[in-house]
């Protein structure tokens, strides 16, 4: 049993303990119970739990109740902002660093780079942080960027004990190949440097529901990690269904299957709970149509379209045309059917010309929409224009094809209009979203990326073909993340014609 050795390693005097922690194997339980045990023996120092998401912070906070004086739980970005804030003068940063980071592309990455450099070049500062936090627990460390990793290691050099939980199979591969290689290199080095390296291997998440499925997922994980193929030919565990179907959509990111193949899929969609997982954003939209718009899209916790829109509004205040263009981009990211040719170009043109030309019908509506921006050329005008569009989509036949897929994000953009300042508004909306913790719907369609960290009783992954799951590290990780979301049943929609090299059929 690995649970005991992991628990013992965490509590040992070893300065660097690395735990490879597949999802569902009790990592949070291990981390939190360790924090509870050790916190009282820390003297004046605190135990710091560093996570990557506010959601993870909440989970740890729930399990370390009553220890808030001894245990601090924060996102690594939160720590970075605090340190950058203390040294904002030499870093040439403004007082509101959060807004600064939100306002520019890769703002948080830039901050991370600055703070990593600060701590590396000025170890006296790292000494202070390490003194304050003699023990640092890193959650989901595979998600740490190079700079975030450097920051944690600077604290370690300054004397902090590290307890690192990571699942390298859940690395998010969004960067360049070089970055991916560097991330793998970091993981390898971390393992080598560790005083203790342990692996969690008990599938607790499935123990009382579908133990066979849990064991199979862990085996599949090892297979994917080690470069092998998942065998779908032999005895499949209870809870796993493999359904063969071919995607016949002519579009690259579309989805369509023959009627006789679709029945099983629709049947599963009738279950009270289901998470449908697929690779790309565009395919999510296509799947929404495939399921006849009965399944909502899971928007995740990040609002890229909205953050871009807020920044755009800040940058182009007073410029109606530019604001209209930004609005158009935003609509493109959250809805379909508002195409530039049929709607967008005219909308931007109206904003540019000040909505003076008399017109009728559809153009009149677009002009009315643009007028909001012309009359109030900032985020408030944009919000009113979007609100107007919502009404049009609901009531006007000409706008019936405009379909909002990311309803929450769209609604938040309208909400933005209630704030004096787009930046502050965005921050406040993000804060409320974090604290209100959106309820997971019973059913949803999501990209695998956004589903990280979610658990659903029933999960369907599609399409499992060579396009979606090729033989790359990133694909292997993505497939594992998809498989491990299921707690009771897992259905794979597998292609025979374009078989994925990750399966043995």
């Amino acid at each position: 049993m690995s649970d005991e050795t992991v628990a013992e390693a965490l509590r040992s005097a070893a300065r660097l303990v690395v735990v490879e922690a597949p999802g569902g194997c009790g990592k949070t339980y291990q981390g939190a119970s360790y924090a509870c045990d050790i916190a009282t023996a820390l003297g004046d120092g605190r135990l710091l739990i560093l996570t990557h998401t506010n959601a993870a912070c909440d989970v740890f906070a729930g399990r370390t109740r009553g220890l808030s004086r001894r245990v601090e739980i924060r996102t690594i970005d939160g720590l970075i902002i605090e340190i950058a804030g203390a040294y904002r003068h030499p870093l040439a940063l403004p007082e509101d660093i959060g807004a600064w980071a939100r306002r520019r592309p890769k703002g948080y990455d830039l901050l991370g780079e600055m703070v990593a450099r600060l701590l590396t070049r000025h170890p006296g500062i790292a000494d202070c942080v390490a003194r304050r936090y003699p023990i640092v627990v890193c959650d989901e460390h595979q998600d740490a960027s190079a700079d975030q990793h450097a920051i944690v290691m600077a604290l370690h050099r300054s004397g902090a004990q590290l307890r690192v939980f990571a699942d390298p199979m859940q690395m998010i591969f969004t960067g360049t190949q070089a970055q991916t290689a560097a991330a793998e290199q970091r993981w390898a080095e971390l393992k080598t440097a560790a005083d203790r390296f342990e692996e969690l291997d008990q599938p607790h998440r499935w123990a009382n529901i579908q133990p066979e499925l849990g064991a199979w997922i862990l085996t599949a994980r090892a297979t994917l990690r080690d470069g092998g193929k998942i065998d779908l030919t032999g005895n499949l565990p209870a809870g796993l269904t493999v359904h063969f179907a071919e995607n016949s959509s002519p579009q690259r990111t579309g989805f369509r299957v023959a009627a006789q193949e679709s029945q099983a899929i629709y049947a599963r969609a009738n279950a009270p709970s289901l998470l449908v997982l697929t690779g790309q954003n565009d395919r999510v939209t296509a799947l929404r149509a495939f399921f006849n718009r009965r399944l909502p899209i899971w928007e995740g916790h990040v609002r890229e379209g909205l953050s871009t829109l807020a920044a755009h509004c800040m940058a182009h205040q007073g410029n109606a045309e530019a604001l209209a263009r930004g609005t158009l981009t935003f609509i493109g990211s959250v809805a379909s059917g508002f195409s530039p040719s049929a709607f967008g170009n005219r909308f931007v043109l109206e904003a540019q010309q000040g909505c003076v030309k008399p017109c009728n019908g559809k153009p009149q509506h677009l002009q009315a929409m643009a007028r909001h921006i012309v009359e109030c050329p900032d985020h408030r005008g944009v919000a009113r224009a979007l609100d107007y569009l919502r009404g049009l989509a609901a009531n006007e036949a000409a706008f019936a094809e405009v379909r909002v897929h990311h309803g929450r994000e769209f609604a938040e953009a309208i909400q933005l209009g209630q704030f004096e300042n787009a930046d502050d508004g965005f921050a406040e909306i993000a804060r409320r979203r974090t604290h209100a913790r959106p309820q997971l719907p019973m059913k949803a369609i999501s990209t695998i990326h956004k589903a990280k960290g979610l658990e659903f009783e029933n999960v369907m992954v599609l399409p499992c073909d060579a396009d979606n799951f090729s033989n790359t590290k990133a694909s292997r990780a993505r497939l594992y993340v998809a498989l491990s979301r299921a707690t009771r049943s897992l259905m794979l929609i597998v292609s025979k014609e374009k078989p994925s090299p990750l399966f043995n059929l």
Partner: protein
Amino acid sequence: MPEDPHQPAHVAPYIRHLSINRFRGIEALSWFPDKGMNVLLGGGDVGKSTILDAIAMLLSPTNAATLSDADYWQRRHEDGFEIAAAMALPLNCGIVEQRKASWPWEWSADGPKLPDLEANDGQPLDPVFCVRVCGTPDFELQHEICQPDDSVDHFPVSVRRNIGVVRLGGDDRNDRDLRLIQGSALDRLLGDKTLRSRLADKIGETDVHGQLKESAKTALGDLDERFHKRTLPSQLSLGLVGGPGFSLNALIGLTATKDGTMLPMASWGAGTRRLAALEVAAAHHAEHPIMIVDEIERGLESYRQRILVEELLASPSQVFVTTHSAAAVHAAATATLWYVDAGGKIGRLPASVAAQQKRDPETFLARVAVIAEGATEVGFVTNLLTRSLGEDLRRHGIWVSDGGSNSEALTVLRGLATSGLKVAGFADNEGTQQGLWQQTKDQLGDLLMRWADGCLETNIIPHLQDHQLEAFIAEPDGDSGERLRTLADRLNLEDKSLAAIIAASDDIRALMIAAACGTAPADPNAPEAQKKAWKKHGQRWFKSAAGGAELADKLFGLGLWPHVAPQLLPFVNAVRRAVGLEAVQVVV
């Protein structure tokens, strides 16, 4: 990855820079004290103790403080005061473990600065924390930590206690630390938080009433009745009661047993009390507290001063000491000496004066120190200045010190010239180090008397009239044999009568100068024994402090003063002015 965690750079906390603004008599002061022992010298009322008080207030282990308008510069409380320091702190003082994080600055030669992200050094970092205490316009103290982002956080008592400051005041209040007063060193040493309240209960139970004699009880009973009649509170009794400003617990003090009797520590002598208070304070938990000792000599014999100074020097603590004791200055051989002048400016005495510190520590305690280059000059200057003042020099705080040699005197004068300490010099002109002498002259002005050429003897003897020769040669006891012998030896004469010597010499005055100065034979091949003997001739004449005084007496006795007055009078008057006296036209 290194095996050992990064070690904190400093074991003992120390103040790297101190600034005081508008605190008591100090309007503005900026000081970079030394890491080890700092000895503050200077006259009375120049602010030495204020500096120590400021440090003690900054690091005070309690929040209790009563400010008065006298704590504010020129009593202008509406302007507030500020005492700020950049300190190197060991991280175990807890400053980074407070509720809000504290962040270090980086030390540079001219003070704390923000870390430079572009500096591609990897140099060992020298972090400092900036702390301050402010006196607000409404007489409150605010202890604060100044963060690099301009924000200000509370500087908590717990951190101040962990840094630690051990204070031995110059007044007789140090008996406070031997009592159980809240916040006193004894109170902190015992750390028994409930003792005071437990004792208060016990003391409260003491039956005072029962101890009263019958007549006293009757008197109290009568009073009770009268109270009752007037509907004042009644049922009177006696008990031990505290009151505002004093507490019964303050009656509890440290005791020690002497000859079988338990006696309060407070009844021992002042020195013992002070050393005891220092021990009590030093025993509390801060490892290397900052030590502050005002008037280290107080109550202590020279040998105990010496031991105390040596112990403080040996400790890793940063130490601040004021003293007026030559023994203490002498013992503080490796300490940094600072001179606080009447303007509240603080100047470092350079290491180059260390020899003088050993030779004559009184130099640094005088109001005006006159560095005379040798024994003759010491005797001469003392005599000259005494004549001008009409009384003992020491009554005016003037101290004449032997600089050791011409070049040593120059070293000491250069070292002291910019320190703030008032220094005067009296030296020969040996034709060496002219540039440095000129620099020093530029700094000191008339306070430096250096002959335009030669020395005392060469500047006085040539002015003797023929009829004065005999009287000049005669020693104070009337005997002139030994001096005549030195003259005769130089002429290779058996006969040492003045007449014979004058007859054999072509320039009797030059001969006298040569003998008085111990000039070597002109012939470099002269026998060693002769060279040695001639060198000793000077001692027969004026080469001693007594000789210098005799020379001055003769200068005035023989009426030669007017010849040297143009050189010496400006010097005499400069010294007089330095001690606040009017200039004079004549010296008799």
